């Protein structure tokens, strides 16, 4: 799902047109663009702006307000690790820090081989099985270091 595909203006225009008649279409449009291409390319801005009768600056403002939207491709896989209180109470911080140290990256960064992006999020509604995460959109619970290390090995085909 997070895998990015190369820019295709025609496809983008189709996607935008399919959503443009919705009430408050900006978020729906940005979501489908990101689903399709993996991120919201600069080339998309004028198209979205035109469809919504807004300026490019306004579209840029919307994209940057929301944590979800990315303007650059992510790694092949995306791990969203919860950093909020219930996960903290189960040692989530330590697990996350050790994991990032192992990968040699910080929050929001991608491993040099482009395999994995790790993002911090605040609560996934999985607080009764903390620490929790979403891996390419699939929920994971009661995460320990072993589970995360296993995940990386799987990602890298080890």
């Amino acid at each position, binding site marked *: 799902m997070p895998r990015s595909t190369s820019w295709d203006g025609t496809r983008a225009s189709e996607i935008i047109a399919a959503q443009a008649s*919705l*009430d*408050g*279409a*900006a*978020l*729906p449009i*940005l*979501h489908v663009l990101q689903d399709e291409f993996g991120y919201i390319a600069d080339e998309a801005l004028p198209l979205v702006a035109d469809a*919504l009768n807004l300026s490019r600056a306004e579209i840029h*403002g*919307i994209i940057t*307000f*929301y*944590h*979800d*939207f990315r303007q650059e491709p992510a790694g092949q896989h995306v791990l*969203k690790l919860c950093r*909020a*209180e*219930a*996960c*903290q*109470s*189960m*040692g989530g911080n330590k697990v996350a820090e050790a994991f990032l140290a192992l990968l040699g990256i910080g929050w929001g960064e991608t491993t040099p081989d482009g395999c994995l992006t790790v993002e911090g*999020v*605040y*609560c*996934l*509604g*999985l*607080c*009764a*099985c*903390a620490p*929790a995460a*979403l891996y390419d*959109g*699939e*929920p*994971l*619970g*009661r995460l320990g270091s072993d589970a995360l290390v296993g995940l990386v090995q799987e990602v890298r085909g080890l």
Partner: protein
Amino acid sequence: MTRVFISADAASLALGSRRIHALVLQEASRRGVEVDIVTTGSRGLFWLEPLVEVETPEGRIAYGPLEPTDISGLFDAGFLDGPPHPLRLGHIEEQPYLAKQTRLTFARCGIVDPLSLDDYRAHGGYAGLQGALLLAPQVIVDEVRLSGLRGRGGAGFPTGIKWDTVLNVEADQKYIVCNADEGDSGTFADRLLMEGDPFTLIEGMTIAGLAVGATKGFIYIRSEYLHAYRTVNRAIEIATAGGYLGSSICGSGRAFTLETRLGAGAYICGEETSLLESLEGKRGMVRAKPPLPALRGLFGKPTVVNNVLSLASVPWILAHGGKAYAEFGMGRSRGTLPVQLAGNVKRGGIIELAFGTTLREIIEEFGGGTATGRPFRAVQVGGPLGAYLPASMLDLPLDYEALASAKGLLGHGGIVVFDDSVDLSQQARFAFEFCAAESCGKCTPCRVGAVRGVEVMDRIIAGIEPEKNFEVLEDLCTLMTDASLCAMGGLTPVPVMSALTHFPEDFDKLPRLSVVAE
């Protein structure tokens, strides 16, 4: 064919229920027996997930928590007949955790197929709407007012009064907006309901539409809840095909349609005016109030904004009467509250009870103490803007006013337990860090105050000039409380000051002088 029930709510999936589902199918086909697996929501007893229930002549028999390696042995024991087994739980309703609850809003969750209208109706669904279709709008509003229902999203505003305002304003278009942004740490009741019994929410919104004269509704779901989003979208299609949504609800000639929208990762979009901005396709900047959304809300039109649980309580109220609902609870907190117990606790889950239960009953009796087995130290009630409370305050009842008088809040009913490894100065620092990350940036006390707060906490944690920095901290908290435009900045001092008040020892970072032996 024997029916087997397995939860596919996001938490059960996180604990491996999909694998269990696949293995049950595989094992059954290997043995040449037929099973019909019904995918349900969760009963909300998460320490027992993955849980399966098998339908037998004696009712549903539950087994859990299951590991993949348990399945073949379970079939060896004669699984489909509900045989004895070390993981056999019997009738799940007889578990004290469930037996002691009063499930009104969550009555069907985990029992029914979330996408079966037949199941929904067979379990009392759409009785409220059928009743409401025969009533004048003002009568519906009065019934909700009589129930004493207060908004479950956090602010606790009386739902009936909000609806009355919207009903009694003239407009060519009105809207019902469901706030499904559920961003508070430690909360998951909205998610559980949307995944396990979405028609209840749809029915509640339809009744709200009839009550105030709104023909269109939106459900704003946070993007972290993709499973809920898919389930709700399917449920809307099914309800529309079944004649429960559309241009003539149940042939009444009255219209109500529903659409969903996905958030995009912004905690502030749970604040109702920020949510409306976001629904309109803009940055989620908080609006100044007045005007109230009830008068000028979505696209400038009168709008009811209600939390998922508020709206999902309405079908029960219309089916059984406002008076029956108001008989549960204490003081000015009427009805039931779906408590969400989470964090460092043995038995986390959803606990729907009449208001008035104490924190101690929840944490000790239901929760069974900490998950790590270490001593209990603190509990945060009401999400990231809620207070940290110590063991000495566990006799507080869950009631809006009782929490407020303890300088805390009930919020959306989330309870997060911490053991003695917690450092409350770090939690206070986190409260500012969270506010800095999630502030919409519209007003200075919050935007700048949160960043300053992190800095001050860093100095306090490093033991630098404690006297002076405690003073700065208190001034900052007073400023944020008094001068923030919305409760994001306005309530961030609650976790901070409660941590400092109840756990001062964690803020005292000066190195101890070594005790000299006598």
